[in-house]
């Protein structure tokens, strides 16, 4: 069944034909991150797709994946394009390498999961936290709840693990 919800004043919908996304966001709504594992080659993939990008098999199973990783790259948005984000600048868009399957099947590949920097309760992080994060920051997944069957996976600074001595940030603050 189609899902519709409001998030930051934006309307988010998952169409009832969009079987892969319905399943993906259903697990997120349970705060239990899942990705598809290919039934043929076993590899995990992100974002949800109908076929496996490595072996083209159509069959897959949903597998629980640990939401921990390292910031691979990012952008810090100061001029929001979407009205929904205008009250939230600066905000961070994080491209995060999951620890799971990192460097497979080739050293340059990873499950890179997008998300905003959030506080542990899934709200967009305030400016003082935004300024602490860069390439190399260790993050863990949290969720922004939107509607029944729909939550967005997000990232927060992982306080349970040591952070690197230096993270790389754009030189101009």
């Amino acid at each position, binding site marked *: 069944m189609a899902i519709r919800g409001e998030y930051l004043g934006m309307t988010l919908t*998952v*169409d009832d034909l969009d079987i892969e996304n319905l399943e993906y966001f259903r697990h997120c709504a349970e705060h239990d991150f899942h990705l598809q594992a290919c039934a043929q080659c076993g590899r995990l993939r992100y974002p949800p797709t109908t076929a496996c990008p490595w072996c083209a098999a159509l069959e897959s199973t949903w597998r629980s994946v640990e939401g921990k990783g390292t910031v691979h*790259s990012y*952008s810090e948005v100061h001029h929001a394009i979407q009205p929904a984000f205008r009250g939230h600048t600066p905000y961070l868009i994080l491209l995060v390498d999951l620890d799971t399957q990192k460097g497979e099947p080739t050293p*340059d*590949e990873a499950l890179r999961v997008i998300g905003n920097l959030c506080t542990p309760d899934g709200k967009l992080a305030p400016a003082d936290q935004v300024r602490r994060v860069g390439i190399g920051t260790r993050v863990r997944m949290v969720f922004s709840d939107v509607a029944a069957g729909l939550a967005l996976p997000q990232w927060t600074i992982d306080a349970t693990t040591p952070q690197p001595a230096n993270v790389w940030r754009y030189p*101009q603050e």
Partner: protein
Amino acid sequence: MPLPRQEVDATTPKYLRDKYAIVGVGETTYTRGSGRTTRALGSWAVRNAMLDAGLKPSDIDGMLSYQGGDSTSGTFISGDLGMRLNFYMDVFGGGSSTEALVGIAIGLIEAGCCKVVAIFRSMNGYSQVRIGGTGARSAAPVTGDMLHNRAYGWQSAGQNFAPTFMRHMYDYGTKPEQVAAVKVAHSHHASNNPKAYYKKRFTIEDVLNSRIICKPLHLLDCCVETDNATAIIVTSAERARDCKHPLVLIRGVVGRCNKPRLDMHYQHGPISTVAGYYARQILWPNAGVGPEDIDITGSYDAFTFTTMLQLEDYGFCKKGEGGEYVSTGAIQLGGRRPNNTSGGHLCEGYTHGMNMVIENTRQLRHDADDSCPIGADGKRQHTYDYREGGCRQVKNVEVSANLGWANPSTASSMVMRRG
């Protein structure tokens, strides 16, 4: 023309080298607020290209265009100009479409579908569908694959490409002031282009002091949004000899060549490498030349960074040295290999890639439409004095490369030479 480099020949048919030509180029003025429909703008640009080639409506029997639901169709333009077409198609696409459609036009003529193909892009990129994504599009409901980007405030081209730009700085130590040099160069070129929307010359400090849009992009790292239509006409070299201008021959084309995992989610690294890395493996062998043979480049400068990344991955410098290449004078008029001599998307106007092909065509004709005086032969008498308001013709230019970009994962490109 330098000698072909046989050692890099590929298996694609070499007999197509120099067999096709660009015979006509045309555009509207670049404005913000055209006050005209895309149908009107398109008719204007195609007509200008037709007249530029010295052709009549009955000479053109093929038409291709590209758009993203923001423009008119070839059926209207051809009808309005009294053409009867043997082939037409409007494709979905923005950046990287121009070179790709030149490849399709060559294929159509080879296949005997038609003989002379007009390619156009018509857009009110400022007054109707904002290319930066503001306006109606920014408030539209978020569904499907957009749930994995727009729901995170990750929508505009700058926001989408930023992970590649930032990672290049991290991987190679590229500095903001190096990349800013692209805007400086293109703004100097635009100051010598009477058509350019922005003719003001900028400095590195101007770029770095302009406000941050989304890191690493300052306002002046981003291109202008404009209203305009542009058009080019492709036909065989044989027919081209009957047209008005010196021959501009197509040496080789790459159309919409992708990185592995074509998605905007950066699953396949290194993400600081762009699709030009793959495209160059087709472009240079097919054209029979290498980067060292190229006199001028036309890069897709949606952002300063896209120019640097393309020039680097097509091999104009070593991988990782793009920042140095664009900031040491090579890409400026008077430098070793000027880039975007019209000012490009950063300054002249935004047309999803076609204005850089138009500019290089004029450069190869040795007839860039600058402010130099027109001589008795009706052509500009170029001074090669590149001071503000002066000449922008590159001296003795023989071979050009155009580098199209849709996103970090998609590249198109084309080598042309003076016939």
